[in-house]
């Protein structure tokens, strides 16, 4: 059973502006897939569909659940969506409460919530930050904690919106090492093609609401004409 099964997904923004023009994508369990493409290509819109925050037309199954209203709870527990700006993701007074938010709102007993928070913070190496106020942390630290907020939900699928954006080289390296160790299926949007080359065997290129290429990262990155046609550039 595939982790993500999308068939011919279409979505228009409320103002009528089309964002997705028939997207089909299948991701198998354990795969790491990078989603690249210019700004406005529809990457974030696609990601917001994966746990039903946006609902377009088309067939969509995530972690075995269809995304109708009866299963949204299960889907949201299974999909860990990490937003690009950690200040959006971390909205609680303290780091601990933020990591506890997901499991708490899944209705788990408090003892289990506490266990999961400890485990998630340990997994991202941020155990000492539990009592801290998010505002005073660096972007890199916030990004790690943002990932912990979905690890605590025991998500099977991590959906990351530009995980390396705005990070200094050391924090970027830290995130790469962290993601390398995580066993979950990962779908990440990014403009950082070196990051893609290092961590993602498979790459999907989106442009103007469509998937224009889907294949092995090495092959796609070697195709200069393809990259150029969609405004992508691999630093050399």
């Amino acid at each position: 059973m595939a982790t993500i099964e999308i068939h011919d997904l279409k979505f228009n923004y409320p103002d009528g502006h089309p964002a997705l023009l028939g997207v089909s994508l299948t991701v198998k369990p354990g795969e790491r897939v990078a989603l690249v493409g210019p700004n406005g290509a529809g990457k974030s819109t696609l990601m917001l569909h994966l746990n039903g925050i946006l609902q377009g037309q088309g067939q969509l199954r995530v972690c075995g659940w269809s995304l109708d209203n009866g299963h949204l709870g299960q889907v949201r527990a299974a999909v860990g969506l990490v937003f690009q700006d950690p200040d959006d993701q971390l909205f609680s007074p303290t780091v601990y409460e933020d990591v506890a938010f997901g499991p708490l709102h899944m209705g788990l007993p408090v003892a289990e919530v506490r266990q999961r928070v400890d485990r998630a913070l340990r997994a991202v190496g941020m155990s000492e930050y539990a009592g801290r106020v998010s505002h005073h942390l660096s972007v890199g630290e916030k990004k790690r904690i943002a990932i912990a907020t979905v690890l605590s939900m025991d998500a099977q699928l991590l959906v990351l919106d530009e995980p390396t954006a705005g990070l200094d080289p050391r924090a970027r390296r830290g995130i790469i090492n962290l993601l390398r160790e995580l066993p979950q299926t990962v779908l990440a949007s990014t403009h950082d093609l070196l990051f893609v080359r290092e961590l993602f065997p498979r790459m999907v290129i989106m442009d103007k609401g469509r998937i224009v290429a889907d294949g092995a990262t090495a092959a796609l990155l070697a195709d200069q004409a393809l990259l150029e046609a969609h405004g992508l550039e691999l630093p050399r």
Partner: protein
Amino acid sequence: MHINLADQHHRGSSLIHRLDPRTKLIGTLLFIVAATVLPPGAWLPYGLLFAASLVVAQRTGLGTGFALRRSFVALPFALAAITLPFTVPGEGLARLGPLTISAEGLVRFASILIKSWVSVQMAILMTYTTAFPELLWGLRALRLPPTLVAIISFMYRYLFVLADEALRLTRARAARSGAGADRRRTGGGVVWRGKVAGGMVGNLTLRAFERSERIHDAMVARGYQGEMRMLDTPHLHDADRSALVGWVTFLAMTLLIGFVF
């Protein structure tokens, strides 16, 4: 680049710091209620309340002058009662043009001044010895409506983020407000400045609005269904109980003195 909005909380390990936030919230609230219901001109009870605030301040390890100095910020608000000496009927003390200052009015005004002053001191001591997240937790535990606590919590969290954005906007304006070759003063006149400031406020409002939608998405993505939940509430310690009992006894005696004598 963060704006330096001073966090009120001062770390410490004094008895007052270690008290449960619920104890401190209730204690402060009772203190303020007691100060409020005392009759005007009850100077001895006022003195007792003031002495209590000094003792608490000394026990926090912040020093007796600490809250005293900071509490003066509240005095301008007490000026709302400035009309009392002129409007309360009573024995005339002095005339100020067409107005008469009455002794009763003056006593009431002084009482309000003192009451608000000691109340503010106690509130300051509470906020300086309790971290904000703990204060929020205390409010939740005391069964304040969750939505209200959530609003305060978001305000606290995003005040900093919004202030940072405002700081960036003003810096961007400053960076582009150069002087012309003829060395006229930078920027435009008052109207121009007003327009720019108005635009920035509008800009900030829009950003805040958009951010609130993204935050809501982030909450929904993690299972939020319209109800804020919280972790468990531990029982009050013995130290908290005895502190509260002692505090209530003291306040009750003060009130007794105020009303009986």
